[in-house]
């Protein structure tokens, strides 16, 4: 009885599993990413007037606004908009302001520059913000208060708006009903310029510049620039300068032969010929963004092999543009950045090898630093950047540049050294798979080779392998003392993390991640997500447009598939290079003769199973949900899902046998008009329908995540806010599948170890149907994705891992707490208590201890994958999407590994003390025994 009490106590303790304080930030890692930063919306800025240090602000192509500390690259704050991906995001900040203003889609918001809190927000329904500018000056005077924003809208209400910098309210609106394509706004101290592209029915497009009064928003004048039919789309316009004393408009012809520049506000168009002897691939114009700076600008010409530049000066009085000097061509790729200090303008040239600072006045080099070689930027070239320059008495004493490299790394160069790098390319991860470590894979391959041989040759092979392994023996023996000492006295943290070879517990596993930009990277989850390699997949398939690659792991390589790709690319995941074809062919899935593989996929709204061996289009089975229903998702049981016990032991020592079908698939379907949802449990070998459950009052626009593991499945949905529903919010449904409702009964199949859903059965009763127990719970927030932890042998309890976007966290719900056998409406009896079943409560509150992400804010999680580790108690978790997060969990505690709190020294001292004690006591005991033999009783 005491044993049962102890068991009950242990069961009560189990839900308290949580992340320990000394484990947090050691076993887990988080890349808080922004995404690919946008060039024109990345800048250094002081968070408030009078601040000593500046922060680096940016909006990314995935609509995330963030402030980065330039010192260490840490994220200070960020705001994520889950808008449509093709929407343009804008970010601007006036000088000496304590807010930054963003515009994404129809949302315009001001954020506190130092902590990212919302200051004001306004929406323009039906319209999309095309451009955003800050009105720096008004009537030639610098505004000291909150500076107003000018926004350009397109869509249903096209026009220009001036928004109050303090409140976001509209001061005036200029409506444009001409039907021209709005392009950009630009401001000067006295005028707001609104640029649009006018496309008449006949002839080429023209650039139209409308002058607006900043005070009233009334149209003052309008000028049409004859662009000689060169501009047909906005991509031909190189630059429309903002906020300089002389805003510029530059465009070029298709062949990049002639550069045309117009000072906005005048009618003159200056044209310059680009150098004739080379083919210019791209022209980029760099101009200062500051209102008081000199009106100089730099034109960068990019060629196939290198780049060079020319600097131009604008004479404001004469309204002429003249070339000042040119910078020599370099046979390497590079970029330029512009920075200002008072009125001076500096251009910084960043190439793969060095950083050079020039003044806009003359071609003299103010400072030059050779960049140290770094792993993060190896083999990549700078794409764009932003710089801060310190110039003292004519020489640049310091420069720091935040540069986005072609390999997707965002780095900061402080003079000649690399201060930090952020792997921003990981932000668009769309697929990820687990992969084993190279050494383990090699061993597994060698052992597999033996299994195909006869006994004698396998023995010889094994012997040879062992002799070969002897060469590592001396090194291993040498490493023993250091390992022992390190283990006893605790080694430094860095060594513990980076030591990939010393992987006793199997925590070091690789994750191969594919991004929507067509990049592939491998991360070591055990070393806090260290990026091992990072390649561009386009080099293997130059004409493919890889924007939704999907991965599949095989032994030693990963298979990359993409809709735009015919066939697959095979990448060796230890090196990141292309796997050799011979290696790939070797490992085709081997099936014995009577076995057939059935694969299934979603075709035209119905799930269809096909025979894998033949390419016939004839489906084996086909499942369509009830008429009017649309399949939203389907989930299959994971391929690797070890089950430790085929039954569940109840309190009275009887057993409920689990229904363990490896082929079950859960299909969820909805009817949008009727607000109903249904889930179907299918057998994917035969297509037989095992079970259905339907729900009414479901918000069908929200996701219905689901997962299957072992003998249970779960799903979640959002209740529609209709009148009459008994409860609203979010529901989590958990179902257990058993062979029979009766304990100690194996149902119609009996003790047969093998059964088929295709072949006939001669047992009594319905063979294929499981007995299903379900329970539903009310949960506090919406779940976007769910999965289950995986361990080596499946002995450890499982945890349901749910992603909660509203909390930016990933929560691990112990399976025990959502057991469908919890008694409803009564307290558990003694036997149920022994099983650890608690009284059913309709709502589950998420215990703060369940939050695997603890203090991290993990945004934009697309998928969570779990994998076994080397030890049974622990499961490895990896989440990807916008952010990357990895951790490991031990749902039944780490019962097979010593914790960090274990004091090995005191254990050794105790053993030594006991040994000494035994040596001293042994003679005494011996004497006493001898004496007792000699005494006469």
């Amino acid at each position, binding site marked *: 009885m005491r044993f049962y009490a102890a068991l009950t106590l242990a069961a009560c303790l189990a839900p308290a599993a949580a992340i320990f304080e000394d484990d947090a930030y050691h076993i887990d890692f988080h890349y808080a990413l922004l995404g690919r930063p946008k060039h024109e919306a990345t800048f250094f800025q002081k968070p408030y007037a009078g601040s000593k240090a500046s922060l680096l602000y940016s909006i990314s192509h995935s609509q995330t606004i963030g402030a980065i500390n330039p010192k260490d690259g840490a994220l200070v704050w960020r705001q994520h908009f889950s808008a449509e991906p093709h929407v343009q995001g804008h970010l601007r900040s006036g000088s000496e302001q304590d807010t930054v203003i963003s515009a994404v889609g129809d949302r315009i918001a001001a954020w506190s520059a130092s902590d990212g809190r919302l200051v004001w927000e306004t929406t323009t329904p039906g319209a999309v913000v095309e451009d955003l500018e800050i009105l720096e000056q008004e009537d030639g005077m610098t505004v000291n208060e909150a500076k107003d924003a000018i926004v350009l809208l397109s869509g249903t209400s096209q026009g220009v708006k001036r928004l109050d910098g303090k409140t976001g309210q509209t001061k005036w609106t200029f409506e444009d009903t001409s039907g021209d394509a709005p392009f950009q706004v630009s401001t000067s101290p006295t005028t707001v310029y609104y640029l649009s592209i006018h496309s008449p029915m006949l002839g080429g497009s023209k650039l139209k510049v409308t002058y607006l009064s900043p005070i009233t928003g009334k149209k003052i004048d309008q000028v049409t620039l004859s662009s000689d039919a060169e501009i047909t789309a906005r991509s031909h316009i190189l630059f429309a300068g903002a906020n300089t004393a002389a805003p510029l408009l530059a465009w070029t012809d298709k062949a990049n032969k002639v550069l045309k520049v117009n000072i906005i506000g005048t009618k003159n168009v200056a044209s310059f010929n680009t150098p004739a002897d080379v083919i210019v691939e791209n022209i980029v114009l760099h101009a200062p963004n500051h209102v008081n700076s000199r009106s100089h600008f730099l034109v960068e010409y990019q060629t196939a092999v290198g780049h060079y530049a020319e600097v131009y000066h604008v004479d404001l009085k004469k309204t002429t543009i003249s070339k000042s000097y040119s910078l020599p061509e370099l046979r390497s790729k590079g970029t330029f950045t512009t920075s200002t200090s008072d009125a001076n303008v500096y251009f910084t040239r960043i190439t793969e090898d060095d950083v050079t600072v020039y003044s806009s006045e003359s071609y003299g080099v103010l400072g030059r630093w050779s960049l140290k070689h770094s792993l993060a930027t190896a083999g990549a070239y700078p794409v764009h950047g932003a710089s801060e320059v310190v110039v003292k008495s004519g020489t640049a004493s310091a420069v720091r540049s935040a540069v986005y490299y072609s390999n997707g790394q965002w780095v900061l160069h402080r003079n000649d050294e690399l201060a930090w790098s952020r792997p921003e390319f990981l932000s668009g991860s769309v697929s990820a798979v687990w992969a084993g470590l190279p050494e383990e894979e090699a061993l597994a391959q060698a052992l597999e080779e033996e299994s195909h041989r006869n006994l004698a040759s396998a023995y010889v092979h094994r012997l040879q392998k062992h002799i070969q392994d002897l060469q590592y023996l001396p090194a291993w023996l040498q490493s023993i003392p250091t390992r022992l000492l390190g283990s006893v006295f605790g080694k430094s943290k860095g060594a513990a993390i980076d030591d990939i070879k010393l992987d006793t517990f199997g925590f070091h596993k690789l994750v191969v991640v594919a991004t929507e930009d067509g990049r592939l990277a491998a991360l070591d989850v055990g070393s806090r997500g260290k990026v091992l390699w990072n390649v561009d997949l386009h080099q293997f398939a130059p004409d493919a447009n890889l924007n939704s690659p999907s991965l599949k792991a095989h032994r030693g390589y990963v298979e990359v598939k993409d809709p735009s790709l015919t066939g697959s690319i095979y990448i060796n995941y230890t090196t990141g290079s292309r796997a050799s074809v011979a290696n790939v062919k070797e490992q085709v899935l081997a099936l014995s003769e009577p076995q057939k593989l059935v694969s299934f996929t979603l075709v035209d709204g119905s799930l269809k199973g096909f025979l894998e061996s033949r390419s016939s289009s004839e489906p084996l*089975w086909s499942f369509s949900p009830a008429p009017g229903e649309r399949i939203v998702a389907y989930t299959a049981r994971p391929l690797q899902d070890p089950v430790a016990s085929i039954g569940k032991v109840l309190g009275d020592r009887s057993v409920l046998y689990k229904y363990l079908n490896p082929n079950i698939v859960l299909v969820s379907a909805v009817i949008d008009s009727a607000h109903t949802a249904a889930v179907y449990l299918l057998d994917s070998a035969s297509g037989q329908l095992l079970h259905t459950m339907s729900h009414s009052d479901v918000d069908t626009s929200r996701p219905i995540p689901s997962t299957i593991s072992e003998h249970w499945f779960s799903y979640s949905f959002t209740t529609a806010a209709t009148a009459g529903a008994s409860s609203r919010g979010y529901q989590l449904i958990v179902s257990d599948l058993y062979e029979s409702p009766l304990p100690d009964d194996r149902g119609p199949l009996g003790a047969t170890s093998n059964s088929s859903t295709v072949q*006939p059965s001669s047992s009594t009763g319905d063979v294929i149907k499981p007995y299903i127990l379900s329970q539903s719970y009310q949960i506090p927030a919406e779940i976007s994705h769910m999965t289950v932890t995986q361990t080596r042998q499946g002995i450890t309890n499982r945890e349901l891992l749910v992603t909660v976007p509203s909390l930016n966290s990933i929560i691990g719900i112990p399976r025990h707490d959502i057991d469908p056998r919890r008694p409803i409406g009564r307290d558990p009896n003694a036997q149920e208590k022994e099983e650890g079943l608690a009284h059913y409560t309709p709502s589950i509150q998420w215990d703060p201890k369940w939050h695997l992400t603890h203090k991290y804010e993990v945004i934009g999680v697309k998928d969570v994958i779990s994998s076994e580790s080397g030890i049974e108690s622990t499961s490895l978790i990896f989440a990807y999407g916008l952010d990357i997060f990895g951790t490991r969990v031990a749902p039944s505690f780490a019962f097979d590994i010593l914790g960090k709190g274990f004091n090995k020294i005191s254990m050794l001292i105790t053993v030594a003390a006991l040994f000494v004690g035994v040596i001293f006591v042994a003679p005494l005991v011996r004497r006493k025994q001898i004496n007792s033999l000699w005494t006469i009783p």
Partner: protein
Amino acid sequence: MLLAKLLLLPVALASSVTVYVSSVSISDKSAIIPSPIPLAQIEYDADQSVGTIASYTPPTGSYSSSHLLRIGLSDPKTGSWRGIVTSAASFEEQYHKKFVIHVDDKGEPYHVGFGTSVKGSSDEVEVEIVKRSPGPKPVLNKPIVLNAEGKIDSKEPEKSFLQKYWWAIALFLVVQLVAGGGDGK
């Protein structure tokens, strides 16, 4: 009640569905049943759990276990096929066969199932009609009902002082009467 059921009976019209069978071509050889042929005509009432077989023509040929047959429904509107796969050996004489018709809330069939078990006494082919079961709902606690004063309604009104302590007063009076009797002496 019975009368209402009797009246409704003609309304719940029996529906009918045809189950087709065709074979999966294993090799390049022509399939034994190349195009779907009717296997069974089933009449059912969506409110009943069993249906009746109107006609049943089992496929002929060798019932080898490696030969796969597809059993399914054909959508009359789109002509699309939906169904399952089973081994031809399922149609051997020694098994008891059962068709499962999955119907939705309106009684329309959307999927078919087929199963075999050991042959009992009856020789008939069984037909089961499976409706979708409603999913579980959270079992909510009973709400607490308050009265107009914002208090929980108690079952009985509280007894007055007299109702509660009448026996004490009576005892007191009796004692007084009894004790008072001795004064006249």
